């Protein structure tokens, strides 16, 4: 009985250590995907079952844990639109309307399978806790649970490469474990400055059979910004950072 008590006590004392390690792994995945503060250029392509495609190019800036903004560079119909996310607050600035309007993470400013949460993504470790890690040999399977109910997906299942600590596939699930979409990370590329990460992200969804969206990164580099960049009055001036 005494032995069992000691074993249980050790397990109890070690459990937070495991939890910390789990979240450390997720933080490592985040850092390998991008620096905490960076700028990047991305092309988003929506592909329909009939082969029709529409492309969007975005310039993105991020600072710290909770600030990210993106500017549409093309196509012409979207040029000048910009989006800002401060923690859970999101806004869309449309030049003709001229003032930022609040949007939600579930909407999509580009249509297709990617929604605003995918486009203005904060670090996974900021929005999710690791509840379980499965060792699958060459990869880990991380089971993530949203910290709050304002996060776009309640649960994530992330398959991560053990050696590189980079995601290979993520399934986004509802609270009832219904699959909303699957995100695939492909074509690892050296962007310079120590950033080696997947350059192509694809997504599909059982809710949009036959549709696919692709995100291609052309440039990503560490860059520091002042907090004032991530404010509503600065949104119309994001272009000046390029």
């Amino acid at each position, binding site marked *: 009985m005494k032995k069992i008590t000691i074993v249980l006590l050790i397990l109890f004392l070690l459990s937070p250590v495991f939890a910390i390690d789990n979240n450390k792994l997720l933080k490592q995945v985040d850092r390998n995907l991008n620096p905490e503060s960076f700028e990047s250029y991305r092309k988003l392509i929506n592909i329909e079952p009939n082969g029709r495609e529409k492309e969007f190019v975005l310039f993105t800036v991020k600072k710290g844990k909770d600030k990210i903004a993106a500017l549409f560079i093309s196509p*012409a119909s979207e040029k000048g639109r910009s989006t800002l996310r401060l923690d859970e607050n999101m806004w869309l600035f449309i030049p003709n309307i001229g003032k930022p309007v609040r949007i939600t993470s579930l909407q999509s400013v580009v249509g297709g399978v990617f929604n605003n949460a995918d486009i203005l993504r904060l670090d996974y470790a900021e929005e999710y806790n690791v509840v379980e890690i499965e060792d699958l040999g060459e990869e880990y399977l991380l089971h993530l649970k949203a910290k709050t109910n304002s996060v776009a997906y309640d649960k994530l299942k992330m398959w991560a490469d053990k050696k590189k600590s980079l995601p290979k596939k993520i399934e986004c699930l509802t609270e009832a474990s219904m699959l909303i979409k699957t995100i695939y990370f492909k074509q690892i590329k050296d962007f310079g400055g120590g950033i080696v990460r997947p350059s192509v992200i694809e997504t599909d969804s059982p809710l949009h059979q036959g549709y696919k969206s692709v995100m291609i990164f052309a440039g990503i580099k560490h860059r520091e910004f002042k907090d004032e960049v991530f404010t509503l009055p600065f949104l119309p001036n994001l272009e000046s950072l390029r």
Partner: protein
Amino acid sequence: MRSITLFFILINLFVLGLSAQEEHTFDLSEIEKKSFQIGGYLEFRPVLFGLDGDSWFYKLKFYDLEEGKTIAEYNFNVLLDASYEKGIIKAKIRTNTDITKSFSGWSHNTTLFEALFSVKPSLSFHLDIGKKRMKWGKGYAWNPVAFIDRPKNPNEPELALEGYMVLSMDYIKSFQGRLKTITFTPFLLPVNEHINSTFGKPNQLNFGGKIYFLFYDTDIDLMFLSGGSVPARYGMDFSRNIAPNFEIHGEFAYIPDYSKKVIQEDSTAGEDQYASINYLMGIRFLTKTNTTFFFEYLKNGNGYISYEMENFYSLIDQAYQSYLLSGDDSQLKFLSDTTPQAYRTFAPMQDYLYLRISQKEPWNILYFIPSFTSIFNLSDKSFSLTPELLYSPITNLELRAKITILLGKGGSEFGEKQNDFRLEFRGRYYF
């Protein structure tokens, strides 16, 4: 028939060809930044108006014309945006050209919407001089606190509008904690015969400002305008997400010495002075099926009350009867010339509801948004209904079809407009 079949085969081959392009590429050379940029859109917008021959506004405008039950109008529009940016300076110009073919013939008009010179010595400080829109307010259909903007059309709230000549600056400061941002935006707006002449009383230097806070995840603005061209006014607005898919917003404006132009019994314009309170409350709600609901209530204290509108209609009636009896249209012409613009604005009365329901990409049709909009005048129970279809079949091409049906009894706002309905198609190409 054979040629049509061949055309569709070629289209399908083209589409299949596109789908075969599995490899997508993206290179930084594609997005090289240019100092000088130009863009805009070309638009073609035919409109069919279904006239209401019994309405007072029809009688005021078409009393001597035989236009039948419908009239068609063809609108061509070019919006041009050009900008030059170098270091801390930026110059921007926006022009709008309308060419219209209506029952009265061809007409054209080019307006300088914006012409702005900006200096940005730091990320926190921004100085603008020139013609620009200030775009105050959080409301979607109406903005009671947009003290220095031209009124929006609630049926076209996203339409580009002309600005005013101002000198303004933005000072931005960010913080950690519950108060995340403060921005101070003071401005000067001169009015004389040549500059901002439509704004109000000439030979005045108007001034005002706005302070914006992002506080407890809520956007809050406090603003004021003074200077003499229009009565001084004070306002505030806010916007906040109370849930990820549920936004609330509001505006409040107070004008202590508002002067309302009211048409008198002798058809001349008089003035009624009082303290005017205007406010707006609104919500935006997104369902799990991607349906967005906009709902707004407007209290337009600047607007007319029922008997003032009834008085106006009875004056048109008298003038029209006089014309029918004697053929003398001088009273109608006088009334048409002297009627204050406020009687013809988008919200001439005091209590309105706005509802818009839009469904993003139903049946998995990308870039297709059907929507339904209704504006309800609570004072006289008249309303408009606008179903709309918006689709972007190819990149940079946007097609829109909508019909607005106006309903209301005699003597009501929407019942007395010159149209019963308005059917419109819009094709817009961005470049």
